[in-house]
């Protein structure tokens, strides 16, 4: 049967709690990069400059078609060969940020495409500049339909942070591995990691649903 030791749980909990902080930091920071960069990718594909559009589209396709763990290794280990030395945290944030930016750019793109043509025409007929049209008219209407997808990727990025353990970012998975290799006990650390992820993911998803309803209400849009 299980050899579950509560005293071991209490012993390792402070270390895991600290690592949870790092996991949240990595997810939050990576997501911040992805949200901003993803929008940049989405808008960059809509400029008049065909080359920019093409380059971004190819990059997004490339990132979406290759594994995240490869991208993390690539930034961390191949970078130095080109003289780019990055600390694990920096490399990790760049890799995971770019990865999720690519996915989010597609979410934004679908959101922007869902804004009716009449909204563009109204903006044009009022002589609003392209920058104003995007920032005041189009993006505020593109976000609510994109919100569900954005939320999924927030939970997704949280669950992908363990990948950063491969380059030594001291997040939850990395810490659980260390504990395991020090004590030869894996049941408690890995179980706790699972429970902690669950304890973060579930409320986050619930909060996102409520936030979506609130945003739609505030923007005067219909609830779905």
């Amino acid at each position, binding site marked *: 049967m299980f050899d579950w030791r509560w005293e071991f749980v209490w012993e390792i909990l402070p270390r895991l709690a600290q690592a949870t902080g790092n996991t949240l930091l990595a997810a939050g920071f990576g997501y911040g990069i992805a949200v901003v960069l993803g929008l940049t990718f989405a808008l960059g594909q809509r400029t008049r400059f065909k080359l920019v559009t093409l380059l971004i589209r190819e990059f997004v396709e490339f990132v979406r078609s290759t594994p995240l763990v490869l991208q993390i290794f690539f930034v961390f280990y191949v970078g130095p060969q080109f003289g780019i030395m990055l600390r694990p945290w920096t490399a990790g944030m760049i890799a995971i940020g770019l990865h999720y930016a690519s996915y989010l750019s597609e979410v934004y793109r679908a959101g922007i495409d869902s804004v009716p043509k009449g909204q563009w025409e109204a903006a044009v007929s*009022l002589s609003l500049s392209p920058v104003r049209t995007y920032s005041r008219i189009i993006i505020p209407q593109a976000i609510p339909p994109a919100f569900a997808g954005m939320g999924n990727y927030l939970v997704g990025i949280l669950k992908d942070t363990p990948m950063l353990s491969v380059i030594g970012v001291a997040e939850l998975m990395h810490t659980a591995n260390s504990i395991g290799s020090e004590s030869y006990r894996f049941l408690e650390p890995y179980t706790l990691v699972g429970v902690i992820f669950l304890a973060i993911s579930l409320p986050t998803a619930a909060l996102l649903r409520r936030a979506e309803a609130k945003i739609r209400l505030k923007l005067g*849009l219909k609830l779905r």
Partner: protein
Amino acid sequence: MNEYPLKLEGENIPMVRFQKVTKRYGPLVVLDSLDLDVAEGEMVTIIGPSGSGKTTVLRMLMALETIDEGVIYVDGEPLTHMEKNGELVRASNKHLRRMRTSIGMCFQHFNLFPHMTALENCIEAPIQVLGLDKQEAIDRARDLLDMVGMLEKADEHPARLSGGQQQRVAIARSLAMRPKVMLFDEVTSALDPEVIGEVTQVIRKLVDKHNLTMLMVTHQMGFAKEISDRVCFFYDGSIEEQGPPSQLFDTPQKERTQQFLSAVLEAS
């Protein structure tokens, strides 16, 4: 391009001039070398079967569509083109944006910004484009909302307004830019019959009290007859017949006009 002047000069220049304007969608000719002048303060109604190019006329004048041949002038200045080294060349986006400020357009489906209140809809462009300060824009918007009978609903979002109310706000939003020309593109077509009156009432008020130049595409023949200075019957991309409403509706000269009018009469 010599046949097209760089600027219309002299007295009595039209507010709007289409000079030999052609528009094609692929092989389909939507407008065929259209010539049309609209005088300052004139209300011109465009009627015709669907596919006759009547909405395209408004969309080109709003510069929502490019044209293939010809030149459109607004208040003497070329809209679709601009002067460069003494010649007319295709208008840049900047030129179009500047010229568009003289023109306002109301759409069949209102196209209000759903995330803004009625008032916010009406102050956005005046602040951003005309550079009005916020209080001035609000004062102007409230006057206009009052004029269209929507002041009470100034702080409501479009989703909470009926179609007729939304269209009235849309008219106020266009007027807030102080255009010289107003375009109404089937503004009552998407409305329930019982609220059409509140929108036509507003347009009537504009005709009576303001010296705006207006072009209107409509299926409401009664309203067109009552309100227009001139009615143009479009058929197959050109003006088949035009004249004062009494003449066009009561004694149409062309066979196609007669057919169209009797078909419409039968339907209503």
